[in-house]
């Protein structure tokens, strides 16, 4: 073989060996283990820790909330949508409770072209007059309509029960002679049904009311609610010595969505509070604030109220006429 050919071959062999050595050196160990890629990378990617846990993770500690949430309409909305990913919780601190619910809830519930008709949607401008959603809606049990009870009792039978059992405290005509107890005349029958049933079942407790309600039959509760709902409220507006009605009026804007602008509620599920005795209103609000009277909505809205705020609110509602000028058909829904 001519010399120049053998040299060339030697050179080529050298290149070939160098290429093989480089390939051997630079190729990762597990490359080609499963295919044309580094086999170890599969396990590396799979080893990443999940950031989002699942509602069952939350249930371990927040069982009560979880039970309420999973029994209601928001059960398809997982905890971490609103409270953020739970990785590192509780070791690394609390998860946020969303502050701006008007921003959060409208992500799903603002009326928008393209959303399916089955999705509950609101016109933001016409809904709740700028209030936070949680004023009326409990995010873990958001639906309100379900709480309106149907009332179909006998008003005459209710009047008899009233005279025998209730008139001493709540007054002959449902207008209480004492500042401690509420007027019942003209109150929404659905609300009265609900609260009496709660006293009877023990869901709500009161030193006076619980023993009385426990002796009432379901029919008697129906009759009483119908009777009070059919009465006209003749209570005169009251002046409070404790609070300032004008200051209470501005605070009362936060209550208007449920209890009406002047304390006459338009939704039969919630009580009208106009014209009630200021002492009664103060006691009721303080009981909600302290958690003695149980209501998730009222607990939320009273949490931030000072004693002065409560006195002012009570003064405002006590000063309102409990029968609006244009007498409306209150009572059964």
């Amino acid at each position: 073989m001519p010399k120049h050919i053998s040299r060339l071959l030697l050179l080529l062999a050298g290149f070939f060996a160098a290429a093989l050595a480089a390939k051997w050196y630079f190729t990762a160990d597990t490359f080609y283990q499963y295919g044309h890629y580094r086999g170890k990378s599969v396990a590396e990617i799979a080893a990443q820790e999940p950031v989002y846990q699942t509602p069952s993770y939350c249930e371990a500690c927040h069982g009560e909330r979880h039970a309420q949430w999973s029994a209601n309409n928001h059960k398809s909305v997982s905890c971490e949508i609103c409270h953020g990913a739970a990785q590192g919780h509780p070791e690394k601190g609390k998860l946020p409770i969303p502050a701006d619910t008007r921003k959060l809830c409208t992500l799903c519930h603002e009326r928008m072209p393209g959303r399916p008709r089955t999705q509950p949607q609101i016109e933001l401008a016409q809904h709740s007059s700028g209030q936070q959603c949680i004023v009326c809606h409990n995010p873990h049990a958001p639906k309100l309509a379900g709480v309106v009870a149907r009332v179909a009792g006998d008003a005459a039978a209710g009047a008899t029960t009233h005279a025998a059992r209730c008139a001493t405290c709540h007054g002959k005509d449902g207008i209480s002679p004492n500042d401690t107890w509420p007027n019942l005349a003209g109150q929404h029958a659905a609300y009265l049904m609900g609260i009496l049933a709660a006293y009877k079942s023990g869901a709500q407790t009161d030193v006076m009311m619980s023993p009385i309600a426990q002796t009432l039959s379901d029919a008697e509760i129906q009759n009483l609610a119908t009777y009070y709902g059919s009465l006209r409220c003749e209570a005169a507006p009251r002046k409070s010595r404790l609070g300032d009605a004008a200051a209470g009026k501005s605070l009362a804007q936060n209550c208007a969505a449920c209890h009406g602008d002047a304390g006459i509620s338009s939704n039969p599920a919630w009580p009208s509070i106009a014209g009630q005795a200021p002492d009664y209103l103060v006691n009721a609000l303080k009981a909600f604030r302290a958690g003695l009277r149980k209501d998730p909505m009222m607990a939320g809205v009273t949490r931030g109220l000072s004693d002065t705020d409560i006195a002012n609110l009570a003064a405002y509602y006590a000063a309102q006429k409990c029968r609006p000028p244009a007498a409306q058909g209150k009572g059964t829904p």
Partner: protein
Amino acid sequence: MTNPSDPSGKARRAFLGRLGGAAAACTGALVGAGSLGTVQGAPQGKEHPAAAGSLPMKDYDWTKHRWAFGVDATKCIGCLRCVEACKRENDVPGTAHHFRTWVERYVYLEGEERARIDSHQDPVNIAASGSEREYRFANRYQDAKVEKAFFVPKLCNQCTHPACVQVCPVGATYQTEDGVVLIDHNYCIGCRYCVQACPYGARLFNEDRGVSDKCTWCYHRITKGQQPACVEVCPVGARVFGDLKDRQSPISLFIRNNRVQVLKPETGNAPNVYYVGIDKEVS
């Protein structure tokens, strides 16, 4: 084609034969050189890993699953919680223009032939959310005369014949046995061929790390028996995920009970995200 001086083509056949012999000899030499230990680990076809009995993960057998994804566009409300969950779960860079999954809004206005399409990274929608790290659709069509509108969630289709894998020059992206296309971030050289090759625009480039990035159907979650984060948080069940090898899995039922379609079937990628409730404008 045939050589006019040799109509039978015998000469060429002989030449090719000799060439083949030479090639065989070279291959022999190569195998001889295989004492260097370079090519002996090469796979003998796809069944190799299972045959060898080796699995990449201890607690998870990737030969027993074939994952697929379903999207019911008739249910989507455009809340973009999936986008947020994905970004958080997978630590996707913070700007609105980096995302592994997204939701498109299609709006047909009266008198217009084509849909207006926007997504969370549209400037109007960024302005509505107030931040590039929060996601919401601006209610920009509330006063317009809308003829038809709907939302379409999108993500990687984990194609059966993925174009992105084919173009990768270094073997940094690949398809797993259970049908998910992954990226080996330690091997990726950041050339972005794959970003261009994807017919669905599903890949993104992570400038912080200098590598391509993509949806993995949360491979770290599904191999632990969980759902992908976007499926986990979807409040209306518009996203469906499951195992095609399980006849009763949510995705098997979804495909069986609905008239499903895939995006751009003509590209031959054989995508694995099945859609319900979209129209021809969506691709």
